[in-house]
C-alpha cells in the first residue's frame, strides 16, 4: 500500500509538470492553431537559466524570476521571428518551423550553458515528510502548489480580465474577434509569452527534483502533448487532468513494469487515445469547414 502511495506521489509531481507543459500547448493552440513543438525547451530554459544565474551569484528567487522573464522574451521572439512570418502556412510547415526552433534552442543552450546535468538547491530543504509509509519531498509540494497557483491564476485571468476575454474570443473565432476590435496579433504574442513563462515556471519548480540539461526539452514536449491530447486538445482543464494522468501512468509503469521504459508510457497513451477516443476526454468533436 505504501508502495502504491509512493508511486502516486511521484506521479502527481511529474504530472503537475506535464500539466503545465500541456497548458502551454493549449494556450498557443487556442490562440493560433499552432502546435508549438518547442514548448519543452521553455522548461529547459527556465531550469538551465536559473542554474547559471544562481551560480553567477544571484539569489535563487531573483534568478528564477529572471529566468522566467528571459523565457517569456524567447517566446515572444519565437512568435515574432518564426511564426508570424509564416502566417497561413500549412500544418506541416508550422511543425517543421517549431521543431526547428526547438532544435535551435537546444543547440544554443548547449553552447551558452554546457552539456552537463544540473540542479540548484530545493526551496525548503531536502528532508522528506513521511505520509502513511511513503515519503514526499518538500519540493514536490512546491511543484504541486506552483502548478495550482498557475492554473488558478490563469482561470482568473481568462474569466475576470478584459485581456483574458480577448484571448478567449480570439480562440473562439479570430475573424470575429478582430471585427469587434481585438488586437489578435497582440493576443498571439501574449499567448507565446504566457506559454513560455508557464513552461519556465515548471522548469524552475521541478529542477531540484529531476535535474535539468540542455536536451530534456523534446521528451517533455512529447509528454506534454500526450497530456494535452488525452485531456482534449485546446481545453485547459483537460490539460490539467491529462497531465496528472500521464504522470501517474508513467510512475506506475516505472514502479511496476520497468523504469527504463517509463518514457514509453506517453507514446502508448498517444496511441491508445487515438484508437479509443480521438478527441480526448474533454475535447470537442472537430469538423473541418471548407
Amino acid at each position, binding site marked *: 500500500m505504501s508502495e502504491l502511495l509512493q508511486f502516486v506521489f511521484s506521479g502527481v509531481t511529474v504530472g503537475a509538470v506535464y500539466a503545465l507543459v500541456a497548458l502551454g500547448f493549449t494556450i498557443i493552440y487556442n490562440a493560433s492553431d499552432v*502546435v508549438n*513543438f518547442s514548448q519543452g525547451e521553455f522548461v529547459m530554459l527556465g531550469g538551465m537559466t536559473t542554474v547559471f544565474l544562481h551560480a553567477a551569484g544571484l539569489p535563487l528567487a531573483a534568478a528564477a524570476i529572471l529566468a522566467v522573464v528571459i523565457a517569456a522574451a524567447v517566446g515572444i521572439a519565437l512568435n515574432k521571428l*518564426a511564426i508570424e*512570418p*509564416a502566417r497561413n*502556412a*500549412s*500544418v*506541416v*510547415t508550422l*511543425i*517543421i*518551423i517549431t*521543431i*526547428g*526552433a*526547438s*532544435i*535551435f*534552442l*537546444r*543547440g*544554443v543552450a*548547449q*553552447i551558452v550553458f554546457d552539456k552537463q546535468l544540473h540542479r540548484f538547491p530545493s526551496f525548503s530543504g531536502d528532508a522528506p515528510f513521511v505520509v502513511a509509509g511513503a515519503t514526499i519531498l518538500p519540493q514536490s509540494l512546491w511543484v504541486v502548489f506552483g502548478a495550482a497557483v498557475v492554473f488558478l491564476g490563469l482561470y482568473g485571468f481568462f474569466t475576470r480580465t478584459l485581456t483574458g476575454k480577448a484571448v478567449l474570443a480570439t480562440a473562439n473565432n479570430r475573424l470575429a474577434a478582430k471585427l469587434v476590435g481585438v488586437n489578435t496579433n497582440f493576443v498571439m504574442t501574449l499567448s507565446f509569452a504566457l506559454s513560455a513563462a508557464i513552461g519556465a515556471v515548471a522548469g524552475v519548480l521541478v529542477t531540484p527534483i529531476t535535474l535539468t540539461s540542455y536536451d530534456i526539452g*523534446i*521528451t517533455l514536449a*512529447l509528454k506534454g*502533448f*500526450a497530456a494535452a*491530447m488525452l485531456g482534449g486538445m485546446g481545453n485547459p482543464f483537460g490539460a490539467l487532468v491529462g497531465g496528472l494522468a500521464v504522470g501517474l501512468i508513467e510512475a506506475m509503469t516505472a514502479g511496476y513494469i520497468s523504469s*527504463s*521504459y517509463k*518514457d*514509453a508510457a*506517453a*507514446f502508448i497513451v*498517444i*496511441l491508445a487515445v*487515438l*484508437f479509443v477516443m*480521438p478527441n480526448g476526454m474533454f475535447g470537442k468533436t472537430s469538423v*473541418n469547414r*471548407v
Partner: protein
Amino acid sequence: MRSLKRKHITLLALVVLIAVAPLFFPSAFYYRVGTLMFINGLAVTGLVVLIGYAGQISLGHAGFSGIGAYACALGPLHLGLPPAASLVFGAVLSGGIAWLVGRPILRLKGHYLAVATLGFGILVSMVLTNEAHLTGGPDGMAVEDLGLRAALREIGISVRAPELWYWFSGLVLLAGAWLVLNLQDSPTGRALRSLHDSEIAARTVGVDVARYKLTAFVISAVYASVAGSLLAMMNRFVSPDIAGFLHSIQMVTMTVLGGAGTVLGAVTGASILTALPQVLTVFHDYEHIVLGLIMMLVMIFLREGLVPSLAKLFGRRER
C-alpha cells in the same frame, strides 16, 4: 510529356553525378563521403513521398533506419539469415510496423502524426539502448559484411571496398529514385499529391485519404530501413544513435532544404548536409543550431526548398 521529361532529366542528372564525381576524387575518403550522400539521399527520397507528395510529416523516421540497421546486425547472428536477406527482412519489418502504427494515426491531422512518429522514434532508440544483451546497448555492435566484394572476387573482379560501396549505393539510389519518380505520375502518385493540396477536396473526389497516407508512410519507412541497412553494412558497425531523434531531424532537414517536392531537390539537400560536417570540422558543436536554423529559414523564406526555388529563378522555360 513535360513530367516525363523531368523524370528523365532527374535520372540523367543522377547518373552523370554518380559517374563523373569519382574523376575528381583525390582519395578513398571521398568515395566514403559520396557513399554517405547516396545512402542519405535514398532515405530522403522515401521522405519525398511522405512529405513532398502526401504532405505528411514524420519526426521518427530514424526509428525505421534503426530497425533496418539492427536487422542486418542481428539477422545473421540470431536468425542465421544471410546479410542480403537480413536487409530485406528489415525492410519488411519496417513496412509492417509502419502499417500497424500508421493505421490509427494517419486518420488524423498532421500534429498527431508528428508526435506519434516522434514517440515511435524515441521508443525504438530506447529499446535498442536498453536491450543490451541483444543489441550491445549504447556501445553498439559489429555488423557482418554484405559479401559483395567476395562475390565479385569469385568472378575475377577486385574492387576496393570504398569504391565498391560507392558504386553499389549509387545504383541503389538510382533504383530508388526511379521507383519514386514513376510513382509520381501514376494514379497513386496523383492521389498522394492531391492530399498535399487539400485533404477535403481529395476526399470529395473519392480519394481514400487514410489509405494513401498509409501507403506513403509505409513506402518512406521501407526506404529509411534500407538506407539504415546499407549504412550499417558499410560501416560494419551500428549503434543506437542511428535511431536517435537527431538523425530523424537530419532526415527532415535534408528533405526540406533541397525541396521536399522533388527527388533531385531532396538528394541535393542530403548531399549538402552530408558534406557540411566534412567541410566544417567545428560543425559538430553547432549541429543543433545549424539544423534548427535551416529548418526555420527554409520554411519561412524558401518554402519549396532550394532546388525548386533556384529552378524558378533561372528559367521560365521549364514551365
